[in-house]
């Protein structure tokens, strides 16, 4: 099986920002509760950045990191902890869905394009050329 995976810096940055703000806020609150002063030191900031980087990377791997594996008959999509496998032949229609902000998904429909029975492969997150993959996939599903 061929495997495609790419670190999505947008999602990684998003989780880093959230955890950095949380860690700093928690530290300031605890600091104030116990000492009644807010300590501002460069080494504390450095520790917070390193801690936020570690926690956010772990969170990114558990929640957002996408791995797409495929061969001529099957493919699997792993987003965070969740992994699902599919057979190419179960799908009939393919489209490119432009979700905005540069996010593009390859949609695979099982029966009708006007029914919500589809799966989405985040091609922009995986760093795949959307139009290239749209031309390649019909060879597998037909």
């Amino acid at each position, binding site marked *: 099986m061929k495997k495609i995976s790419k670190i999505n810096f947008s999602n990684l940055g998003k989780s880093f920002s959230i955890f950095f703000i949380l860690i700093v806020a928690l530290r300031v609150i605890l600091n104030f509760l116990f000492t009644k002063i807010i300590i501002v030191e460069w080494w504390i900031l450095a520790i917070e950045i390193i801690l936020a980087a570690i926690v956010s990377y772990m969170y990114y791997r558990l929640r957002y990191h996408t791995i797409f594996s495929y061969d001529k008959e099957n493919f699997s999509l792993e987003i965070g902890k969740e992994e699902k496998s599919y057979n190419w032949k179960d799908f009939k229609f393919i489209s*490119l*869905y432009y979700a905005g902000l540069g996010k593009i998904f390859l949609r695979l429909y099982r029966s009708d394009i*006007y029914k919500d029975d589809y799966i989405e492969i985040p091609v922009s997150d995986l760093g795949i050329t959307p139009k290239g993959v749209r*031309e390649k996939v*019909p060879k597998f599903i037909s």
Partner: protein
Amino acid sequence: MRDLIDNIENQLTKGRGRWIAEFNESFINYHIGSFMFPLFVRGQTRSKGFLLSRLFAYFALPNYLVGCFVYFDDIKKDSLGRLIKEMLRMMKKNNIKWSWLIIPKETEFSQKIKKIVEKNDISNIGIALINLKNKDIITNNSIIGRKIKTTLRF
């Protein structure tokens, strides 16, 4: 032709038609009955936007489904009629409010076809015949049809 398909798809999905509709999904080689469309882009009249524009769109804009079909084969009077019938049937089945039908060609369209399109008064299908050589665009007289000329660049 491949470049033209990419061009139309890029224009629509990158927001060229956002004043009329937000096109956000494209299919290639899409079949309706016996007709094969090299490109079908679909969307809706309610745009997504961000915060205020999203709120405005939610309250002020109707959420109609719309589509844009691109057809390449040499078109004749009969086949154009059948093509429109098939499109109307598909639109009714899937609750699509209006559609564009774009027919590009490297050579001149016959006078018969041009007249049929110009006289066509279907309100929910906009038809555009595009002569790629001299960039001449002929549309039907509906509002939807006339909008093709002002929205897309060929």
